[in-house]
């Protein structure tokens, strides 16, 4: 391939920039909940986010990356024109990046996932024809954009109701919290580990059976629960704190749980969103390396590492500022409800990751917050803002698509 190396370098640069943007901006939504409830300081949040975004991207980011790389487009149609696909993927990255830049300067609620999927579909439809889009996959992706917030909302509702029944509505909520919070910690560790090990670890060269996965998940969950229990038992109960607000000490116990769910949130975000940046890079890499469009080999680990590094770089350079800003605005989610939102969202997103479905982490989290709200758990939610967020992808898909068509043609002209 004549310009193979140039294509690859361009893809790496665009992909890195996109990953950087995700780290700088998107991570904040996942982490701000914990900062807003004062469970984590900014530094701690950045530290946790860096580690777990990285781990999530590398360990569990492969499936979604695969979908973005070769699931959305019928790559078989492009057997004879591998360069078309390269231009398309580069254009998609540029388009999604540009659209996100425009949207965030205008303050529009736009999702990275929707942008990149829209952009890839855009160049496929206009550049290659309607038949080039792999409609069943796209159909399930779009369906998941509706299902994931709804699912997270239902789970969050049930989680918060269980917290009410088991802890908050009891006569002695502190004792109940000490007893039951370790169980929630176990559940968090179990679900996250199970979803990751069941399908994700192939890319790291580790394949586990269902029984093994379950075993590992139980061990991880139990270890976390025991550790959490030890920490919780050492929290001194200060009755004077409860004078103003009677549940201050209970919330302090929930804070331990929220540290764990914050890790889960960062992990799941990394596992799903890294693909938005490096899925197209992986596609370009496959073609340049093998000359074929339909690469069957798993996504190379170093591509995932590249994406993970980009996210962490963005997070360290700008993310802390955004987390601080967003955190200041989210003070209503105290640990007892923040954890329910985070666990529901993280579980949903990491499940989508293991099925290789790109979903919007923020939308899922918004769904979870609404779920807790329905359980009468949040003092005030702004429904018009919620509506705007959920309607945004209707605009984002065509916008990303149109931009990518423009970039696609520019690419084609300048390289031929």
């Amino acid at each position, binding site marked *: 391939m004549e310009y193979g190396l140039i294509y690859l370098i361009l893809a790496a640069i665009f992909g890195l920039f996109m990953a950087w943007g995700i780290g*700088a901006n998107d991570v904040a939504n996942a982490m701000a909940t914990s900062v807003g409830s004062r469970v984590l300081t900014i530094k701690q949040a950045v530290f946790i986010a860096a580690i777990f975004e990285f781990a999530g991207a590398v360990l569990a980011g492969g499936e979604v990356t695969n979908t973005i790389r070769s699931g959305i487009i019928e790559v078989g149609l492009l057997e004879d024109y591998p360069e078309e696909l390269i231009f398309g993927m580069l254009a998609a990255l540029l388009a999604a990046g540009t659209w996100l830049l425009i949207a965030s300067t205008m303050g529009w609620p736009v999702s990275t996932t929707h942008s990149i999927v829209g952009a890839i579909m855009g160049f496929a439809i206009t550049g290659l024809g309607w038949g080039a889009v792999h409609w069943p996959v796209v159909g399930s992706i779009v369906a998941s954009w509706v299902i994931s917030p709804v699912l997270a909302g239902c789970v969050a509702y049930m989680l918060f109701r269980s917290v*009410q029944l088991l802890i908050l*509505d009891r006569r002695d909520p502190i004792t109940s919290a000490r007893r039951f919070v370790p169980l929630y910690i176990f559940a968090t560790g179990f679900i996250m580990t199970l979803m990751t090990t069941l399908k994700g670890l192939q890319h790291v060269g580790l394949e586990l059976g269902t029984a093994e996965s379950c075993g590992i998940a139980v061990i991880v969950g139990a270890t976390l629960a025991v550790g959490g229990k030890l920490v919780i038992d050492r929290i001194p109960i200060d009755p004077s704190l409860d004078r103003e607000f009677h549940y201050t000490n209970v919330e302090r116990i929930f804070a331990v749980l929220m540290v764990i769910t914050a890790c889960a949130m960062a992990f799941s975000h990394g596992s799903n969103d890294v693909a938005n940046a490096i899925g197209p890079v992986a596609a370009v890499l496959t073609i340049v390396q093998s000359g074929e469009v339909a690469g069957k080999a798993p996504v190379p680990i170093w591509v995932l590492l590249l994406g993970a590094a980009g996210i962490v770089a963005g997070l360290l350079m700008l993310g802390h*500022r955004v987390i601080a800003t967003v955190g200041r605005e989210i003070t209503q989610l105290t640990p007892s409800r923040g954890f329910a939102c985070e666990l529901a969202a993280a579980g949903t997103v990491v499940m989508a990751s293991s099925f290789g479905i790109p979903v919007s982490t923020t939308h899922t989290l918004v769904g979870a917050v609404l779920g807790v709200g329905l359980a*009468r758990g*949040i003092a*005030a939610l*702004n429904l018009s803002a919620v509506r705007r967020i959920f309607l945004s992808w209707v605009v984002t898909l065509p916008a990303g698509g149109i931009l990518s068509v423009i970039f696609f043609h520019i690419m084609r002209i300048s390289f031929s």
Partner: protein
Amino acid sequence: MIGRSYFSGIFGTSPIKPLQEHVTKAVECAEQLVPLFEAVARNDFDEVAAVQAEISRLEDEADDMKKELRMRLPRTLFMPVDRRDVLEMLRLQDRIANRSKDIAGLVLGRRMTLPGSLVTPFMEFVQRSIDAVRQAKKTVDELDELVETGFRGSEVAVVEALLEDLDRIEKDTDNMQIRLRRSLRDMEDTLPAVDVMFLYRVLELVGKLADNAQQVGARLQIMLAR
């Protein structure tokens, strides 16, 4: 790629704190009635005027708080309590402040005189009405705990106990008012007729203060029942 986060935008401003601050202000208004009537008993109308001015100032503040909270409750706000209940509660709380101001204005304008034998029972009656207002504030103060527990469980029992106390206090004021009216009736012949009419009116207004407090509690009960 730095923009304002749209995620935080889904959280509206909670009406709970402002509602609690407003009721605190209303209680402050009502509490001024004690120094007001003490000054009346002493026939010290300079002091009555001073207290009346103070009540008027507090009532203005409560009014501003009411308007500000109303502005911050758009129709699209999703809350664990009905928006109409919040607005109604705010209106009822504000009536406590208004009522206090009305009483003070009336007392100052007519230069009320309180027969010596009535001073003690009357002051007790005023105190008890203010107790009712304070009790209403206590229940409103539990609103953030109610949000924390999602309006369920043992916290509901705590609030219901407070509401029962409120009802009892209000009943006390009713009985005191009846007794005071009877005493006043017995001395009707010895007092100027207009003074008597005026005293009946003041008794009625102070009694209504406790009624208002009870209505605030009733609204809270409706919130619990949803």
